[in-house]
């Protein structure tokens, strides 16, 4: 089923607002990871505002779906989504990466809505397998969505986790791979080639799907489809690092961003122009 333009536009508009929040957060924090935050922004928007079952007033709600961020460095987009969803006051975004503040430079349990402590790449999918196993043992229907980066598929533990999800046929586990082709020191295929991740997941017994990670209709239809699959599912989301900011797109040097006022102004202007198209 195709989603209506009204519904898709509402989500698209929201994603620009979240991106504007991220630029402002990183400006106040003086630094942070932006390339991956923007490549995964559309999927984060869909997960938090359409797909997952969540209750911001009760973050530990037993019936919730679990959204986990394994590549914790892209957390500015997570925090922007959690704040807008109502997990904590939006003012907290002003204190990202600052001492005595709620929002740590990498996600930590204890921040409302955060489901895993991350920052060491390659551990999040295993933690997701753990939660999925617990749910399976108790025959509970909750879903576990684990967001991973393509770069962290260079960590061996990621493949240990992939192997184990297949062993227990975890049909409540969905991994999203942000296939943006960049990592901190260069392009993934130059640093350590990852090759065809879809085929690799399939050879480990998973259902794997290649999608355009910026096409809202495709993203939402894929999440609908995976709910019917009785196996662990990998969504390889082909994305653009730094998406929507003309001077950042696809460039690995914006993986980590030391902001400067000129770039901030330019980025905000570009995002505002996109946002204005909806008015």
């Amino acid at each position, binding site marked *: 089923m195709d989603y209506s333009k009204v519904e898709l536009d509402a989500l698209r508009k929201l994603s620009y607002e979240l991106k504007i929040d991220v630029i402002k957060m990183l400006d106040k924090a003086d630094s942070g990871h932006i390339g991956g935050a923007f490549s995964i922004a559309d999927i984060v928007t869909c997960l938090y505002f359409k797909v997952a079952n969540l209750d911001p007033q009760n973050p530990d709600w037993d019936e919730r779906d679990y959204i986990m961020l394994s590549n914790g460095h892209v957390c500015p987009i997570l925090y922007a989504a959690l704040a807008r969803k109502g997990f904590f006051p939006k003012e907290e975004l002003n204190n990202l990466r600052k001492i005595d503040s709620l929002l740590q430079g990498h996600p930590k349990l204890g921040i409302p809505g955060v489901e895993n*402590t991350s920052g060491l790449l390659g*551990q999040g999918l*295993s933690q997701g397998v753990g*939660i999925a*196993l617990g749910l399976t043992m108790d025959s509970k229907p909750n879903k576990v969505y684990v967001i991973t980066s393509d770069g962290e598929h260079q960590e061996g533990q990621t493949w240990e986790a992939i192997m184990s999800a297949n062993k227990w046929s975890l049909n409540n586990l969905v991994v999203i791979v942000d296939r943006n082709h960049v990592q901190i020191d260069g392009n993934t295929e130059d640093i350590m080639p990852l090759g065809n991740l879809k085929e690799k997941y399939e050879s480990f017994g998973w259902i794997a799907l290649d999608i355009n990670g910026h096409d809202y209709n495709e993203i939402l239809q894929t999440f609908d489809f995976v709910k019917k699959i009785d196996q662990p599912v990998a969504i390889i989301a082909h994305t653009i690092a730094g998406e929507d900011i003309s001077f950042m797109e696809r460039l690995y040097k914006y993986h980590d961003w030391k902001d400067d006022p000129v770039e901030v102004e330019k980025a905000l202007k570009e995002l505002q122009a996109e946002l204005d198209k909806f008015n």
Partner: protein
Amino acid sequence: MDYLLEKYKNESELEKMATREAFGVAIVSVANENDDVVVLNADLPGSLKLNDFMEVFPERYLQIGVAEQNMASIAIGLSHYGKIPFITSFAAFSPGLNIAQIRIGSIKNQNFKVVSSHYGFHVGPDGASAQMESDIAMMKAIPNMVIVNPADYNQTKTMTHLISRAKGPIYMKLTREKFPVFLKEDAHTEIGKVQKLLSGDKLTVIATGSMVYETLQAVLEVDKDGGKVELLNLHTIKPLDKEGILESVRKTGKLLIVEEHNIWGGAGESISRIVAENHPVFTKIVGIYDTFGESGSHRKLWEKYEIDRVAIASQIREII
């Protein structure tokens, strides 16, 4: 408090059991008491004596394969969901191979237990790589981590129950080898409190885990009439029982610490710090002197690397 079995001096009359055997028995009763307890293992269930658990609770046993990092992170996920996971392997592999995963789970004090056997020289013939002289150093430096090292079979059964009820990350060390069962089954054990096994006023000896009975025999050999050497059982390495330790060294004025671990990073260093900061006294550590082991029976290794009762007795003699 009287902790020792009546016939504790007569080694030949005491039953010999490995503490990993106690874990295998106790984890079944722990799981009977608490539905949330699950056990994860990395291809070594026989070594951890999990056969009974696997039979009674097949649905709560997770065989992870040879993947200790995955095992630790899965446990952390299970703990976030609300289970009480025990991850089990050899000390060389867990925490040896998964310290980073354990550290991440400790940041928010998540409720998971790391239970590892074959520490020190216990895997003797297998040689240095599978032995483990560094685990306390790794684990004690992680904030929030609790480390327990029970001294015999009976204490391990009690300790397995205690750690399942205590919240947060806890590391429990188990022996591969069979050692005398010398503590009473109902002896009062409290995490974080030393147990005074023998009273004395000339020297405090603190021993932990596999070294406790070995040290006891060394003390009996040197202090034949008793009353000179005070022997404390350090079943909890972190947190340290500051008051219990200081109370004893204030009385005796001298301290010997005995452990089957590298002297760099072991319990001895941490005890020495507490003593130096609060009541400095002469202190000596019997431990593995910054060397790896080699193939050989654990008894031969203890002898060669001077942590056996002969070496301990000679140190005690020299100090008093």
